[in-house]
Structures are given as structure tokens and as C-alpha cells.
């Protein structure tokens, strides 16, 4: 067990190093931050000086090594755009993203599983067909369009919900939450639906497919033969067996939700890490981009590690093989 985890950890570190190196080399193509950092009346000498101060003219490898060196010391530097420490900024924005992802995950899990079971059991009813065809929209429409559409219907026309922002937040000292105010809940509805739609569709289709599969297996037939109630068969026997792959997918997708909340956060001006990243890209705010990408890589690595460990615990075959 310990050696298995150590091995996985070593692999994770390698992955992190590769991801950060690749993303760092991409910064060469994003442009030059200096023009955004000084007023238009700065002289060419001053621009050159800033470039030198920041080490932007050094070879990309030198910059990368310096970045890694500083990172191991816990120094992520100062944002070029707002001149505040990067780690403070990420920690400050993280609660907003985590709350959004949390609510979205609950929505997609709840509706995904419930609708998946329904369409799996009553696969020929017209309700199932409607659900399945609308869910196609969930996977095929871009998040941006869904978000703007929801804003125009619920904020502009019906005026039920706010179009953007986080509503009322309460600072608990270590965590700034919007889940303790009515305004905050009103504000989170539209962005969390937008963010959850894709995952919801995915879970729905997965649960449905698994249900159809499981319903055909022998043990369900035996359960029927034993005279168990439909409810017991559907929920106690069939559903349980569908959940194994679903949990895997969910684990991996929560990381995805955090990483891909970028678009949703931009549309709804949700003050989380995704919005911060987009703004950083527009400004070529290298310290933020670098730290954010490392952070996302770390997140994926951790989630994968946890999933691997869970497999190890659940599935004896891996234990024996490893």
C-alpha cells in the first residue's frame, strides 16, 4: 500500500513538472506584459528596464528554473496587473470557485442520477424522450451561449434573478461565503446551472446506459424471480451496481468543473479563480497564469491520486497486481 502510494506520488510530481514546463513555455506566445504595465508615455528605455527587472528577456528555461526555485520557497511573486501577491489572490478567489463548483456538482449529481434512473427504467415513455433530447442541448450548446441565454430569460425578462456577481457575501475570516445569504443563493442559481449542464448530461447518460446494462443481467432476473418489489430491484440492486463507474467519472469531473469554470465565471462575473485567470491572460500577467496553471495541475494530480487510492481499496485485483 505505502509503496503503491509512493510510486503514484513520484509519478504525480513528474506530471506536475511537465505540465508546468509546458504551460510556462506557452507564455512566450501570449505577448508582452510591459506595454500593459506602463502608461503610453513611458520611454523605450523605461520599457527595456522593466523587462530586465522582471527578467522577461532571459531564455524561457532560465525563467522556468527561477519560477520553480521561487515556488519551492513559497514565493509566487506579485501580480503584474494588480500588484498584489499571487498566493493571496488565489486564496481570496478560491472560495467563490469552490462554492460554485460545489453547488453545480450537487445539481448535476442529483438531477443526473434521478433523471438517469428514470430514463433507464421508463425508457420508452415520452417524458424520457423529451429529457434525452433536451439533454443533447446540454452537451452541444457552448457554455457561453447557455449562460447568456439564462441571463436574458431570468434576469432581463423575468427579473427574478441577478445577472451577475456573487450577491451578498459574509466573511468568516478564513472563508468568504455567499451561501449564508438569500442574495447569495439567488446569485449562484444561474451560474451553477450553467456550469452543471454539461456534467448533468454526462451523468444522466452514463447512469441510463449503466441501468440498461444492469437491468439485462442475470441477477436482476433472479431478483425478479424472487418476487422482490420493483422499488427494491431498481434502487437496491440495479442502482448500486451502476454507481461504481459514475463515482469514477464524478471524481475526475470535479477537477474539470474547477478548471473549466473559467467560461461560466467570465459570463457571470463570478469573482473566482477562473475569472482571475482570464483577466490575467488578457494582461499577460505571467505570475498569476503560472501559479494558476500549477494549481490546476496540482488539483488534477491530487484527485487522480485519491481515485487511484480508492480503486486500491475497493478493487482487490489492483492490490494483488500491484
Amino acid at each position, binding site marked *: 500500500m505505502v509503496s503503491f502510494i509512493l510510486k503514484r506520488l513520484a509519478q504525480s510530481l513528474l506530471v506536475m513538472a511537465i505540465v508546468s514546463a509546458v504551460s510556462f513555455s506557452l507564455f512566450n506566445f*501570449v*505577448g*508582452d*506584459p*510591459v*506595454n*500593459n*504595465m*506602463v*502608461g*503610453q*508615455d*513611458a*520611454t*523605450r528605455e*523605461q*520599457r527595456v528596464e*522593466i523587462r530586465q*527587472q*522582471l527578467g522577461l528577456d532571459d531564455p524561457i528555461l532560465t525563467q522556468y528554473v527561477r519560477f520553480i526555485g521561487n515556488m519551492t520557497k513559497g*514565493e509566487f*511573486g*506579485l501580480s*503584474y*496587473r*494588480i*500588484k*498584489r*501577491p499571487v498566493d*493571496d489572490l488565489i486564496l481570496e478567489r478560491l472560495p467563490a470557485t469552490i462554492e460554485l463548483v460545489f453547488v453545480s456538482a450537487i445539481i448535476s449529481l442529483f438531477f443526473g442520477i434521478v433523471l438517469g434512473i428514470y430514463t433507464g427504467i421508463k425508457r420508452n415513455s415520452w417524458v424520457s424522450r423529451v429529457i434525452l433530447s433536451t439533454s443533447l442541448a446540454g452537451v452541444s450548446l457552448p457554455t457561453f451561449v447557455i449562460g*447568456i441565454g439564462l*441571463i*436574458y430569460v431570468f*434576469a*432581463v425578462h423575468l*427579473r427574478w434573478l*441577478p*445577472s*451577475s*456577481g*456573487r450577491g*451578498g457575501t*459574509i466573511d*468568516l475570516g478564513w472563508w468568504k461565503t455567499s451561501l*449564508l*445569504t*438569500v*442574495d447569495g443563493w439567488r446569485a449562484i442559481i444561474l451560474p451553477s446551472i450553467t456550469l452543471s449542464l454539461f456534467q448533468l448530461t454526462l451523468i444522466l447518460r452514463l447512469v441510463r446506459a449503466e441501468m440498461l446494462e444492469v437491468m439485462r443481467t442475470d441477477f436482476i432476473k433472479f431478483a425478479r424471480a424472487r418476487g422482490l418489489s420493483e422499488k427494491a430491484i431498481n434502487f437496491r440492486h440495479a442502482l448500486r451496481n451502476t454507481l461504481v463507474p459514475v463515482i469514477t467519472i464524478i471524481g475526475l469531473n470535479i477537477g474539470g468543473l474547477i478548471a473549466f469554470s473559467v467560461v461560466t465565471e*467570465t*459570463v*457571470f*462575473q463570478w*469573482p473566482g479563480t477562473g*475569472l*482571475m485567470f*482570464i*483577466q490575467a491572460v*488578457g*494582461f*499577460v500577467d505571467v505570475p498569476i497564469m503560472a501559479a494558476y496553471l500549477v494549481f490546476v495541475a496540482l488539483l488534477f494530480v491530487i484527485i487522480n491520486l485519491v481515485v487511484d487510492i480508492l480503486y486500491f481499496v475497493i478493487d482487490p485485483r489492483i492490490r494483488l497486481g500491484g
Partner: protein
Amino acid sequence: MLLRHLVTASSLALIVAGPALAENTLRWTSQGDALTLDPHSQNEAPTIAMNGQMYESLVTRDADLLLQPELAESWTPGPDGWTFNLRKGVKFHDGSDFTAEDVAFSFERASHEASDYKEQIKSIASIEIIDDYTIKFTTDGENPILPNQLTSLYIMDKGWSEANNVVVPQDYKAQEENYAVRNANGTGPFILESRAPDEQTVLTRNPDWWGNGMFPGNVDRIEYRPISNAATRVAALLSGEVDFVLDPPLQDLKRIEATDGLSVKTAAQIRSIFFGMDQGVDKLRTSDAENNPFKDSRVREAMNLAIDRDAIKRVVMEDLAFPTSMITSPGVLGNTPENDPPVTHDVAKAKELLAEAGYPEGFTVRLDCPNDRYNNDEKICQAAVSMYAKVGVTVNLDALPKSQHFPKIQKRESDFYMLGWGVPTLDSHYVFSYLLDSSGSWNAAGYNNARVDELTAAMATELDLEKRTSMIDEAWTLVQADMPYVPIHHQVLAWGLASTVDIPIAADDAFRPRFAVMN
């Protein structure tokens, strides 16, 4: 524990909801939040506009962009500099008195290495405090437009800055955030109540402001929320969540106008859009021509005649542009009807001139263009490509985000590029020294006219207004004959407002809450 949070929550809700009912709360939005509240750290329009609500400068501009006294009551030029008489009885938000010492401190701070304003005030050689309310700036040579250069140079309290360890602006090399980035202590009409960068900034009226009763504004509280996505920004106005949008996208203006309870205001902006042609190099980098066609003034004239500016205005800009033959806007000293004649478009003559210059078959060149900086920038360039095709010049468009576009100009790697230029001093010298002087830092056109250089240097120090104006005139006449640039138009700016709010729109796109009236 939870109960306590709930109590805090409800009392917070009361605080937030309470005053909004009784007072005039102005809620507004724009694309980008101020980068910092440190007034000397970033020379950037949204930052200047936000800080200008809390901080004040010696001299300011009203909505018509006329110079007005702010912390200085009057100023007089002398042979070696300017003397400013300061306003008496002014207090900073923390209650301390405003004196000449604060002014001297702020100017020193603004000329520090880490300040983004050091260029603007580099003509000041020394500062002398004559008494508490009189200060003298000795300039390095005469500087007739010093007051124009001070309108966004905000005054900080010396005592507060020392107490909070912010005597110099935030430095990129530092690891710590300094106190002035998120806190403010100015003398201005509004006091900072709370600030969450990129989320919300709340300001409340300063009851002790010197100007109370002197301005029409009746706003008690300002809630600012940046919304970076344009469609969402407009949605917030349409749904009544904000009263004012500073920068609605041009294509949505008709829709805002058509909505009950909303209106649109437009004004000519002090920003001109033009193409630069590099006439300084011997051979163009992106052209099939043997030498540099832009060195020939006939080619430059043809490049000007080929552009149908009225069509760009009509088709690309939805009529929101002022076609021009000059690279600086009305409102800037030097823009006269003689120097800015009506635009001409003549394909036949352009072809003729190209043939005369030795390019009957035209030539190819790459046009570098930003796609996220000016109103419809990329579309303007696309239109220009097809217009140039009609005279035989094959233009290859390279449209990139601003962070990749501007370095090309800065590094002099572009043959043909789009640039927009605003003039904060409202004086032509700013245009000459950056765009037309042979050593100008943005003169990527490589324009070099010895007489223009001479005049640029002379107008920087000429105190006689009449003589100076005639110098500016002469310089523009030379430039208009040489045609180093292809002017396109002056930008129009548009604001979206709820009809309960009246704010005078200004050509510099700055929101001046002291003039905002709500009913």
C-alpha cells in the same frame, strides 16, 4: 457559531439595504476595475477615474475638459516655473489638514522610480514650499503646459503615507502588497467604504468636502461592480441592476435606446485611430517591393486616398465615428478646420499616384492590427484590406490581441500598423513629441522632418500663447503635407444610463460623480 453568523448576516443585510432606500445610490459598471487604489502606481484610465473620486489633484478638468481649480485655487507662470496657491481649510478623509507639505510629498512620490507618472512631471526640477498654502515648481526650462500635465496627479497625505509605510508606490520587485493598494485617504468628494477588487467597490459621500454645495451632484453612495463580459454588462443595465454602464458595446446601443427607462449618450472621444506607414527603413520587412514604397510621398498620399472613411463609418462603426484626415481630435489645441479638412476618397487618383511612383501593379504589405483594443479595430482593418485591393495594393492582415500587437510597434517590427492616440494634455505637443518627432517613442512610422523636430522642441518651452499656437499650426501644416500616417476617424464613446440618472458625458470617458444628478 452558526447563530452568530446568521445574526451578522441579517445585520449586514440591514446595513446594505437600509441606506439604499433613503439615499441616492448610484450603481454602475464598466469592463475593467481600477488596477490599484495607489494613485501613483498605474497611469491607466479606469484607475485614474476611480481614484479621482477619492483623491484630488491641484488642477482638474470639468466635463467640457476645461481646466478648473481643485486643490489649487489659482496658478501663475513665472520665468522659471509655476506657483500654485492652494485651497485653504481642506481636510483629508482621516481628518488631517491639507497643506503644501502634502503636495511636495506627493510630487516626490510620483517621481519615484516605481511611479507610472514620473514621465509626466519630469520637467519639474525642484519644489519649494513658500508657505503652508503656496508652492512653487521650478521647471527644467520653461514649461507652458505644466498645469495640463497635473490633472491626474493626485495628492496624498504625508502623515497617512508615513504612518502606513507607503511613502513610495508599489514596486513589482516587492513580495508584499502595500497598504495603499486597497486603502485610500484623499481629500475628494467620496470616501472609500469597502473594496473587493474585481468584485465591488463602495464609496460614500464626504460630508466635509470643500466643494459641497458648489456642484450639482446629489449622489450619496456609489456602488461600482466591474463586469468584464460585454453582453452581461448590458444585461445588468437592461434588468435594472445598474443605473449606468460606462462602456456598452456599440452594437447594443440601439437596443438600450429602445428600452423604456434607459437612454444612451454619445460624445466625440479624444482618441484618433490611424494607420502608421514605416517610412524610416530602407526595405519593408513584409513587402515584395524592392525598396520601401512608403518613402515616396505619392505612395503615402495614395494610401490615404484609397480609404473610404465614410464607408467605414457607415458600415463598420454603425455611424459612431468622425471620419478625419488628422491624427488628433477636435478639443486638442492644434486641431483646426484648416488642419482637419473633410476627408477625400479617390480610387482613380490613388492608382495614378501609385503608377507615377513606380508601382503600377501595386505592392504587398502586412497590416498589423489589434483585435481587442479599439472600437471594432479588426473590422476596420478588414475593410481597409478590401479598399487597398481596389488600388492594387495587396494587404495581408495580421490581427492579434493588444499584448502581442503593441510590442511590434514598440520594437519597430511593423511596416504598416493600426494605432489609436489619446491626448490627456489636450495639447498638440503631446502628439508631436510621441508620434511625429523623429525620436518620439511611438513614432514607429519613422517620420523624420527636421523642421517639425525643431518646432516640437520650441513649442515645449514657448510661453507666449500666440507664438506657440502659430508654431503648432506650422508643424501641422508640414505634417499634413507629408502624410506620414493614414488617419481613419476619431472614436465616439457611448454611455448607457437609466433615465433617473443624469451624468454629463465627457470626451475623456471619465465618470465625474460630482456632476451626477439622480431623481
